[in-house]
C-alpha cells in the first residue's frame, strides 16, 4: 500500500515535469498549424525545419556562440582561479565577491550596460558583441565551479611533483589540472547552457542580421510560434537526452566496479568524452568559421539593413531582391513597436529601413527620427491604393515619410453555431447570453478602443470623462469575459472554446480557413484600422538602396508573394488583382469595402502622459 502510494507520487512528479515537453513533442508531429486541434500525424515540420534557412542559421549561431563563449570563459575563468588560489585569503575573498556580482546582478542591467559600453567604444553590434557579452557573463559561473575544486587540491601534491623534478607548468597540467578537471568541465557545461538559454543579454547586444534561437523565437510571438520550432525543440531535447544517457550509462563500468577498486571510466564514456564531443565541437567550429568567413562584412557599401516584424516577409522575396540588385540584405526582426523604438532611437545600429506601425511612425516623426522619402525613386507607389495613403495621413500628414506595407482592422470573430443573431455592433460583447464565452484582447489600447467605439467616442480620446465611462463599461463587461488574451484568441476560437472574440483581421482569415464556422465582422460603430509602413531612419547609411527596396516591395508580383506568406491585407491594389482565388480576392475580411472602413481610424501616439492615464485606468479594470 505504502509502496503503491510512493509509485503514484513518483509518477505524478514525472508527469508534472515532463508533460510540457511531451506536449511540445506531440505538437511537432501535428499536421494542423494550430495548437488547438490535432490534424493527423506528419513529419512535415521536420522537413521544413531543415529547409528553413533562418531557423537553421539561428540554431547554428546559438551553438557557435555557446561553444566559443563557453570555451573562452572556461579558459579565462580557470586562469583566474589559478591566480586567485595563490593570493592571500583577504584578496581572494574580495575578488570572489567581485566575480560573483554579475551573477546576482539583474540580467537586464548587465545587458544594457554591455550595450552601452559597446556603443561608447564604437564596437559595431553583431556576432562579436554577443560573443563578448556571453564570455563576460559566463566567467563567474566557471570561477564558481572551478574554485571549490581548486581549494580542494592539496598544495603538497603540486609540491611533490616539483620535488620529483617536474617543472611548475608540467606539474600543473599533470597533477593539479586532473584534480580540477571535473570543475572545469562542469564550468564549461554550465557556461554552454547559460549561453544557450540567454535571451535578454543577447537581445541587447546583437546586431542586425544575426539571431540566436531565443531571439528568433521571440520575434515570432506576433504571428504565433511556428511548428518548426516545436520540431527543433524536440530534436534538441532528444539529442541532449541521448548525450546524457551515453555519458551516464557505461556497461563496462558497472561490471568492473564490483571486481576491483580501480576507477577507470568505461569505454563508452571515454568514447563520448574524448572522441565524440570534441569531434562535434571541432566540426561546429570549423564549419562556423567557413560560414562566417564567406558571409563577408556587414556595413559594406552594397548592403541594406532592414528591421522588420518577425515573420513579416517571404524569405524568397529577400533572395529575389539580392539576386536582382546585387544588394545584400541584412535582415533583423523585432517583436513589438516598443522594443524597436529604443533601438532606432539610440542609433546603436544604423538601420536603413524599418517597418513600424501607425502610431509609432507618428511618434518617430515627432521625435525627428525619420528621413523624408524621395518618391522619385519609388514609381511603384502607384500600385498602392489611395484609400491607404489617405488613412496614412492620420500619422504622416503629408505622406512624406512612409509607404504602407500591411494593414488590417480589428473586429469581432464569432462562431456561427453559437451565436444565432446577426452581429454588427460591439454591444454583443456586453450581452449576458454569452457570459464566459467572450475573449478580449489583453492590451490597453485595443481594449479601450472597443469600449470607446461602442460609446461613440474616438478611440484616440484624451477626454477624462470619456475614458472613465469607457473604463466603467469595461469593468461592467468583466464578469462576462472568459479571458483577456494576447494571441490565444485564434486557437481558442478554432477549438470552439469561445463564442466571440476581439481579433485582428489578419488572424481572422487564417482562423476561418481552419474552422469554417467562424465569421469576422467590423462593427458599425467603427473600429481600429492599423497600418504598418516602411520608413527610413535619419541615420540610414544606404538611403537609395532602401528606396529601391521599397519600390521592389511595391511591385505587384512581390507584394503578392508577401501577401501569400503573411496573409495580412495588402494595400497594393495591383497585387490584389493578381490573386487567383476569387474567394480571397473578394474576401470582405481581407479587403473590406470603403464603406466599412469609413468609421475606422488608426491609433495615434497620445504622449507619455496620456499613455500613463490609459495604463492606470486599465490597471483599475484588471484589478477589479
Amino acid at each position: 500500500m505504502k509502496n503503491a502510494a510512493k509509485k503514484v507520487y513518483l509518477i505524478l512528479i514525472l508527469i508534472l515535469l515532463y508533460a510540457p515537453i511531451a506536449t511540445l513533442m506531440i505538437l511537432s508531429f501535428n499536421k494542423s498549424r494550430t495548437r488547438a486541434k490535432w490534424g493527423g500525424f506528419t513529419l512535415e515540420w521536420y522537413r521544413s525545419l531543415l529547409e528553413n534557412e533562418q531557423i537553421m542559421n539561428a540554431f547554428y549561431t546559438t551553438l557557435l556562440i555557446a561553444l566559443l563563449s563557453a570555451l573562452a570563459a572556461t579558459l579565462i575563468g580557470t586562469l583566474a582561479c589559478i591566480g586567485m588560489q595563490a593570493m592571500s585569503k583577504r584578496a581572494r575573498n574580495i575578488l570572489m565577491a567581485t566575480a560573483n556580482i554579475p551573477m546576482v546582478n539583474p540580467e537586464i542591467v548587465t545587458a544594457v550596460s554591455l550595450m552601452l559600453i559597446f556603443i561608447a567604444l564604437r564596437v559595431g553590434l553583431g556576432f562579436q558583441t554577443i560573443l563578448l557579452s556571453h564570455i563576460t557573463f559566463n566567467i563567474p559561473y566557471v570561477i564558481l565551479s572551478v574554485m571549490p575544486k581548486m581549494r580542494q587540491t592539496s598544495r603538497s601534491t603540486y609540491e611533490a611533483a616539483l620535488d620529483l623534478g617536474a617543472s611548475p607548468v608540467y606539474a600543473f597540467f599533470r597533477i593539479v589540472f586532473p584534480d580540477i578537471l571535473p570543475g572545469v568541465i562542469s564550468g564549461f557545461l554550465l557556461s554552454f547552457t547559460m549561453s544557450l538559454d540567454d535571451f535578454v543579454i543577447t537581445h541587447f547586444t546583437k546586431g542586425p542580421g544575426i539571431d540566436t534561437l531565443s531571439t528568433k523565437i521571440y520575434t515570432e510571438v506576433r504571428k504565433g510560434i511556428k511548428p518548426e520550432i516545436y520540431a527543433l525543440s524536440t530534436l534538441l531535447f532528444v539529442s541532449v537526452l541521448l548525450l546524457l544517457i551515453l555519458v551516464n550509462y557505461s556497461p563496462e563500468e558497472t561490471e568492473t566496479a564490483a571486481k576491483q577498486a580501480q576507477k577507470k571510466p568505461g569505454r563508452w564514456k571515454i568514447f563520448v568524452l574524448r572522441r565524440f564531443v570534441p569531434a562535434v565541437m571541432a566540426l561546429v567550429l570549423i564549419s562556423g568559421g567557413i560560414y562566417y568567413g564567406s558571409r563577408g562584412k556587414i556595413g559594406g557599401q552594397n548592403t541594406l539593413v532592414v528591421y522588420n516584424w518577425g515573420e513579416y516577409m517571404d524569405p524568397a522575396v529577400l533572395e529575389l531582391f539580392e539576386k536582382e540588385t546585387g544588394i545584400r540584405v541584412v535582415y533583423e526582426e523585432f517583436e513589438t513597436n516598443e522594443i524597436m523604438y529604443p533601438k532606432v532611437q539610440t542609433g546603436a545600429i544604423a538601420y536603413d529601413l524599418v517597418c513600424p506601425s501607425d502610431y509609432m511612425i507618428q511618434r518617430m516623426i515627432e521625435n525627428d527620427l525619420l528621413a523624408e522619402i524621395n518618391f522619385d525613386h519609388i514609381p511603384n507607389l502607384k500600385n498602392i491604393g489611395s484609400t491607404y495613403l489617405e488613412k496614412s495621413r492620420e500619422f504622416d500628414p503629408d505622406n512624406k515619410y512612409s509607404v504602407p506595407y500591411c494593414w488590417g482592422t480589428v473586429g469581432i470573430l464569432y462562431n456561427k453555431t453559437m451565436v444565432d443573431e446577426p452581429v454588427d455592433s460591439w454591444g454583443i460583447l456586453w450581452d449576458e447570453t454569452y457570459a464566459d464565452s467572450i475573449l478580449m484582447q489583453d492590451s490597453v489600447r485595443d481594449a479601450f478602443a472597443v469600449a470607446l467605439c461602442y460609446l461613440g467616442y474616438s478611440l484616440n480620446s484624451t477626454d477624462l470623462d470619456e475614458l472613465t465611462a469607457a473604463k466603467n463599461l469595461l469593468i461592467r463587461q468583466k464578469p462576462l469575459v472568459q479571458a483577456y488574451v494576447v494571441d490565444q484568441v485564434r486557437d481558442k476560437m478554432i477549438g470552439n472554446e469561445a463564442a466571440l472574440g476581439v481579433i485582428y483581421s489578419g488572424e481572422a482569415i487564417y482562423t476561418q480557413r481552419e474552422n469554417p464556422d467562424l465569421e469576422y465582422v467590423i462593427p458599425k460603430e467603427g473600429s481600429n484600422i492599423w497600418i504598418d509602413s516602411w520608413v527610413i531612419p535619419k541615420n540610414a547609411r544606404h538611403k537609395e538602396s532602401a528606396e529601391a527596396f521599397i519600390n521592389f516591395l511595391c511591385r505587384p508580383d512581390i507584394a503578392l508573394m508577401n501577401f501569400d506568406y503573411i496573409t495580412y491585407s495588402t494595400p497594393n491594389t495591383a497585387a490584389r488583382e493578381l490573386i487567383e482565388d476569387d474567394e480571397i480576392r473578394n474576401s470582405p475580411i481581407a479587403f473590406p469595402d470603403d464603406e466599412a472602413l469609413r468609421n475606422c481610424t488608426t491609433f495615434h501616439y497620445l504622449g507619455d502622459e496620456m499613455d500613463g492615464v490609459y495604463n492606470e485606468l486599465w490597471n483599475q479594470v484588471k484589478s477589479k
Partner: protein
Amino acid sequence: MSNKLIDLVHISKTYGTNTVLDNLDLYIRENEFLTLLGPSGCGKTTTLRIIGGFETPDSGQVIFDGKDITALPPNKRQLNTVFQRYALFSHMNIAENIAFGLKIKNKTKKYIDDKIRYALKLVNLDGYENRMPDSLSGGQQQRIAIARAIVNEPKVLLLDEPLGALDLKLRQDMQYELIRLKNELGITFVYVTHDQEEALTMSDTIVVMNQGYIQQIGTPETIYNEPENAFVADFIGDSNILSGIMLKDRLVNILGTPFQCVDEGFGTNTPVDVVIRPEDVNLVKPEDGMIRGIVTHLIFKGVHYEMEVMANNYEWLVHSTDMFPVGTEVGIRVVPFDIQIMNKPISEDEEAVNIEA
C-alpha cells in the same frame, strides 16, 4: 665523522610580523638521521621547506655538497621529500606514481620497471603496481610515498612528519621500517616531528627547536639525560623541573632541602633550574626519605605506575613499578647522578623560549 652534506648558514625567515627562523645555523652530515624536533610553530617545518626549496629564506644561505643552492627551485635539487599527508597523485596508479620522477628524467622503460619493483619490495608492497592510491591504507600510502621518493636516488630524503596521520601501532612499526630503510639505502634522512618518542627512537642526531631558535643539538641520549635548559627537559619526556639554589659544587638546595649532586662550576648560592626525571624519583619509607610527602594521584600506565606526591609544597611526578595508594605517606630519595642542574635563563630571548607548555 663524515662530511657536512647540508649547511644552513644564518638563515632567517619572517612571515609578516611573525619571525619563524632567526639567524639559524645548522649542518647535516652525510648518512646521518637527523631529526628536527619541537612543538608546532617552532620553525622545524620551515627549516625543512627551506632545505627542500619550497621556501626561500629572507637571509642566509643553503649550502648543499659545497654549492650554494639557496635560489635553486625544488625540481632542480638532488633531494626528495615525503610529505605529511602522503601527497600521492590520486588519478594515477601506484606504478605511475612511483615512475613520475623517473619519467621526467627520461629513464628507459626497463629501468623504470625495475626500479618500481625494487622500491615496492623495499617497502614491502610487492604486487601493488596497479592499485589506485585511494584503495590503500594510510600506512601503505605512506610507504608508497617513500618508495616514490627513493627511486630517484636522492642524496637526502626529507620527511615532514610522515607518520603523523597514522595510528600508534602503525607508527611504531613504521619507525623500525624507516630505520631499516635508512640503513639499507645509506642516505641522509632529515626528519621533522613533534613526537619526542619518534625522535628518540630513530635519530642519530636530534635538533630541539623552539620559536625559531635551536635549543639543543645532540644524540638522543644527551638530549634526554642532559637537557641544556628547562624547555628541552620539559619537551623531552616528563620532568620535574624545580627551582633550586646551588649552594656549592655538588650540593644543591631544592625546596629547602640540600641534595647531593654531581655538577660543578655553578659557583656558590647561584639560583638554578633542577631537572629530575620521574623514573629517577625513588619512593621509600617515610623515615628513609630525604624529604617526606603524601601520594595524591595514582594512575596505572602499564609498564609502571604514575604517581604524584605532594612534598615541600611541590607536586612531584613519579614513575615507579611499586604502587603506593593515594594518601600513603612516603619518603623521596634521588641519587646524586640523577639530578641535572641547569643555568636559569638570563637574556630576554632565552626567557621567551623558556616557557612553552
